[in-house]
């Protein structure tokens, strides 16, 4: 494990970068480090990214310097890495407004896109952007597309979409630049539960045509 890069994010948060790849082992480590940090005194919150951890601390109870000294040891030995998570099977009606165009750009038929999208068991790398939005991957390379050039101002809740090596489900109506392949009736944002998200980091997801 290379030494992590630690940098400030304002005066009460810092970013720990573990690497720059989408990688299951790196991501597991990031989540384990975040979980360990959340238990430390002076830490208000910690959130893992793909290969990073953002740490929100109380400078009256701990210092940037002491955290920066302690974190590399924690990254080297983050303790038990959580279980691989629950498996969710999610039904999708593949009638998205971008399905035909995405297939065209990928040199595939819409049927091939649907089949490829439903093949892997995806990992929840992180949840963020809006409440309950899970970043899922890796997507089969044959489906990699850059984001839409002009993002939509409003993507309906439940839209199932792809971008780059990622796929995801919009939990709420929100702006978005991913390609919309279809929609699911399953609710991703669970405001009356804690945590308020169906999908949690480390969970696994498989799509099937409804």
């Amino acid at each position, binding site marked *: 494990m290379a030494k992590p*890069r630690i*940098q*400030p*994010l*304002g*005066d*009460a*948060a810092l*970013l720990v*970068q573990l690497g*720059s*790849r*989408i990688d299951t082992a790196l991501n597991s480590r990031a989540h384990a480090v*975040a979980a360990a940090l*959340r238990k430390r005194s002076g830490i*208000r*919150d*910690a*959130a*893992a*990214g*793909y*290969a*990073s*951890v*953002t740490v*929100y601390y109380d*400078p009256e109870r701990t210092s*940037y310097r002491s955290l920066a000294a302690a974190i590399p040891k924690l990254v080297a030995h983050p303790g038990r890495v959580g279980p691989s998570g629950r498996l969710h099977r999610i039904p999708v009606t593949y009638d998205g407004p971008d399905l035909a165009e995405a297939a065209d750009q990928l040199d595939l038929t819409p049927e091939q896109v649907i089949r490829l999208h439903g093949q892997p068991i995806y990992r929840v790398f*992180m*949840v*963020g*952007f*809006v*409440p*309950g*939005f899970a*970043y899922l991957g890796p997507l089969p390379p044959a489906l990699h597309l850059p984001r839409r050039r002009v993002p939509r101002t409003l993507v309906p809740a439940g839209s199932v979409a792809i971008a*780059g090596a990622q796929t995801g489900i919009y*939990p*709420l109506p929100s702006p978005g630049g991913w390609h919309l392949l279809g929609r699911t009736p399953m609710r991703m*944002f669970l*405001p009356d539960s*804690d*945590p*308020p*998200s169906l999908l*949690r*980091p480390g969970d696994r997801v498989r799509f099937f045509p409804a």
Partner: protein
Amino acid sequence: MEPVLRVDKPGLQTTIQDLGRGGHRAYGVPPGGAMDRFALAAANRLVGNPDGAACLECAVSGPSLVALQSCLIAVTGADFGATVNGEEMPLWTGVFLPAGERLAFAGRRAGARCYIAVAGGFGGDRWLGSLSTYQLVGRGGLGGRPLKAGDLLQPAAAPPHPQVAGRHLAEPLRPAYASAPRLAAVRGPHFDRLSRPARTVLWKTEFEVGKDSDRMGYRLEGQTLEAGGRDILSIGLAMGAVQLPPGGNPILLMADHQSAGGYPVILGLGRADIVLAAQLLPGEHVSFTETSVLRAQDAWRGLRAGLETL
């Protein structure tokens, strides 16, 4: 508990806010809470509440409220011309509002958001540990929405005893609000991606707060900035972080910011300077000056020390 105030006019966007919710960023939930956390804490202290009790945050214009029972209130933050029964009311001061009297606002003079505290704090819907209104998901505060005419505001608790009117935070102890502040910022994790000319623009020019700026963030318009390097994997973000999307117009993230993102983060404001940013409206200006983590923390401590006089 009996309602303490009745809303006759809600103002442009008045919401219940406290110091926000921590611990749920890993599920995409932003911190939320008051944009100006100093003004909220000060308002609470002036009426004898704990720093994090829920207040009303009023954006751009104030509400018109009638006391249903006598109560101790304070108004801090922006100056919207607060009045009690038509008479000018002192800001940053604990004031006794007798039953039947009206707190109203003559109009904005300076700043973007004012805070109204009541002794005992405002009650509301607690969501994930906070009373803060989060409009995107319609949770917290009063039904997850801004106040509307006819709403009855409940106190969260009985007022603390004894109730002391006349507590005051002197002007030198308040933040140096301005319509074109120079904000002290720490270099962000991706600052090094900025080209040399972009760094000059960043430190030497003014940016205008864009029209579509809100509780999520401010779009900063002006000369565009250029950043190089490969795509960034999404990271957890923070209030006060300045992101740089491909168009080159930076975005300053505020209380209801998206919890994660994949644009370069070029700056991070300290807490004392987020407070100054919270009082800006679209069309006003900001510039940036470099600071360090320790100096930014000292600036916040200096500001907080003023509250200890209350």
